């Protein structure tokens, strides 16, 4: 698969930062160190042509270490190629550099990730909550946040 050509070039340039490459149902995922995320993204955009950031989100793997994973879905418009980059973020310092300098679309997506997951993006031009009110406390999409909301009796019945 030609995606591996790009992954091979990525591995060549950032050999220390690429932690893992896996493939599932014909989709390639590359796990990289979070410290190198901005140079890697810049390399992918400028040298390899992944000019479209489809999506940026966080996943909370409560109980595992590192706890969070920031997931970037990239797309190469000219080659119709998708690629997924993941960067693990640990619980004690949930910070990662912002990629809004590489793709402007990351601005609101990172705000949403901060709002719902609590992952700080260093260098973000506008770090405010976006979906929840400014004075909300807590980060609802984390696994330890109750689904019925704060300050309510836990739901006693079946959820499904």
């Amino acid at each position, binding site marked *: 698969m030609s995606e591996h050509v790009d992954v091979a070039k990525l591995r060549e340039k950032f050999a220390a930062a690429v932690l893992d490459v896996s493939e599932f*149902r014909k989709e390639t995922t590359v796990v990289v160190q979070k410290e190198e995320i901005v140079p890697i993204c810049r390399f992918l955009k400028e040298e390899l042509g992944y000019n479209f950031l489809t999506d940026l989100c966080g996943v909370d793997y409560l109980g595992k270490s590192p706890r969070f994973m920031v997931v970037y879905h990239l797309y190469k418009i000219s080659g119709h190629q998708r690629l997924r980059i993941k960067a693990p973020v640990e619980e004690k310092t949930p910070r990662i550099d912002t990629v809004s300098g590489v*793709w402007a679309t990351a601005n609101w*997506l990172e705000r949403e990730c901060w709002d719902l997951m609590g992952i700080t993006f260093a260098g973000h031009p506008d770090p405010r909550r976006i979906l929840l009110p400014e004075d909300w406390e807590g980060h609802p999409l984390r696994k330890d*946040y109750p689904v019925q909301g704060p300050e309510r009796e836990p739901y006693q019945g079946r959820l499904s």
Partner: protein
Amino acid sequence: MAMTETMTINMGPQHPSTHGVLQLVLELDGETVVKATPHIGFLHRGIEKLSEHRTYHQVIPLTDRLDYLAPMHNNLGYCLAVEKLAGITDQIPERAQVIRVIMAELTRLKSHLVWLACHALDIGAMTVFIYCFRERERIMNFYEQLSGARMTSNYLRIGGLMADLPDGIEKEIREFVEEMPTHIDTYEGLLTGNKIWQKRIIGVGVISAEDAIDLGVTGPSLRGSGVDWDLRRDQAYSGYENYDFQVAVGQDCDTWSRYLVRLVEMRESCKIVRQALDRLKPGPVLADVPKICLPPKKDVVNTIEGLIHHFKIISEGFKTEPGEIYVGVENPKGEVGFYLVSDGSAKPYRMRIRPASFINLQALPMMVEGSMIADVVAVIGTLDIVLGEIDR
């Protein structure tokens, strides 16, 4: 000597032109917008959090309520994602694929009719609103005949469809798409040559192709800026490679261009539905995967395997392999994607929805700074945003 300062006004969450609960804080210098800040989140229902506590089948009604103007497209995107995760994409029957395409294109027509109606109404053309909603009623009748609900259809299932088409509906759909181009001609006759429409639309809300790609804009808003990208053609799903249709790409990067792109898309949708109706052959509409797809009712009441499978699927759900996938579909608003992370259990560990309207709305401040308030209304209409998808 006059001292000028800017005035900040609020285009509140309740406003007839904001297409939902969108709050725009506008900083104005006279009538010109200096800065526009969208505030969203008034319709946030926590769909991503809720879906972590429901089985894969139970999430389908939640996806209806994302982009509530194109519910079958959200169903389609989610079902394709779960089918890919479960590995049953090859087993979906041909008839189900064709009906999915028919309903997806009728949904595109439905969504674009609302776009045209509300965009024209905001600018002042009230007749177009009534005409578009008249056609939209007919599509909602089809929805009701198929699934029982006019808007939140919940018609697609993992592995196929909820039920087969009722008798006689193929003829009605064919009649509808045969006369739809005449209706589109009527709308064009009212708007395209209209000097007021042209003056309000041409040159408004300009966004270049590089800025659009950088900001993540997708769908007709991106194609209006000259970028030739359509997921139905480039990453074909659900049998779209079998249909012959053209992708509309505009050249002028402004609201006029996006208007023309969406009108052409409406005509192409009629073409695709006609081709799909010709391809329709009798057959099953749900994949024969007993562990995942609900068995037919006569098996549930007559055979023990059917009963056990039904019970297990409803109460527990089906388990998938641990892994993650992303599937994007070409929603009328843009690329709506579903990123599912599975940890091997019967519920999605994480469901992330790539919200096309949310990312398109990010381009609004850039498109609007320097224009007048009336242009803000035109740009909100042309971006075709739906707050259900923005806020989830």
